[in-house]
């Protein structure tokens, strides 16, 4: 019963962070939400008895993808022309 409650809470947290990734206005916040989502996915893989995937998700899914996205947001910001509010 306890573990099912945890699963449901984690599911809600996953969906909430995913929604935040798409809905928040600021791109940096969106990417940070996505990294949080990736870390929550690590927990989900651990709950599904998949330590291999949890390791890969932590290093590649959350870490490398997050670094790529953050670097790209910084790049787009730095070269943005005045008047563009994308």
């Amino acid at each position: 019963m306890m573990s099912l409650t945890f699963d449901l809470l984690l599911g809600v947290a996953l969906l909430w962070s995913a929604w935040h990734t798409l809905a928040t206005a600021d791109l940096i916040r969106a990417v940070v939400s996505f990294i949080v989502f990736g870390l929550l996915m690590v927990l989900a893989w651990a709950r599904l008895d998949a330590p291999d995937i949890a390791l890969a998700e932590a290093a590649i899914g959350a870490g490398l993808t997050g670094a790529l996205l953050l670097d790209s947001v910084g790049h787009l910001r730095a070269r943005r022309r005045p008047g563009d509010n994308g």
Partner: protein
Amino acid sequence: MSSGLVYAVVGVLLFVLGAAGMLLLPHLLRKILAFNLLGSGAFLILVGLAQRDGGVDPVPHAMVLTGIVVAVAATALALALLRRLHALSGRTQLADESADE
């Protein structure tokens, strides 16, 4: 309801959220984020559904492991294309979508 089934249902919702995001959001970086959410949803369905009656299934584990690496490769390529588009034209949206925003 087993925890495998819970995560499979969460995966479905993530998949649909990502698919809708890819269609509705004009900014290309958001489309890339939505694409990654969609992929994570598919991975959760794959593993969760295989384990809905308890027990561990190593076959979807291996497939998802492969999928995570392919997803990061696709993301890096997509980001490079987005940067190129931005460097050449200053846009971060596709041409036909920036018209009606």
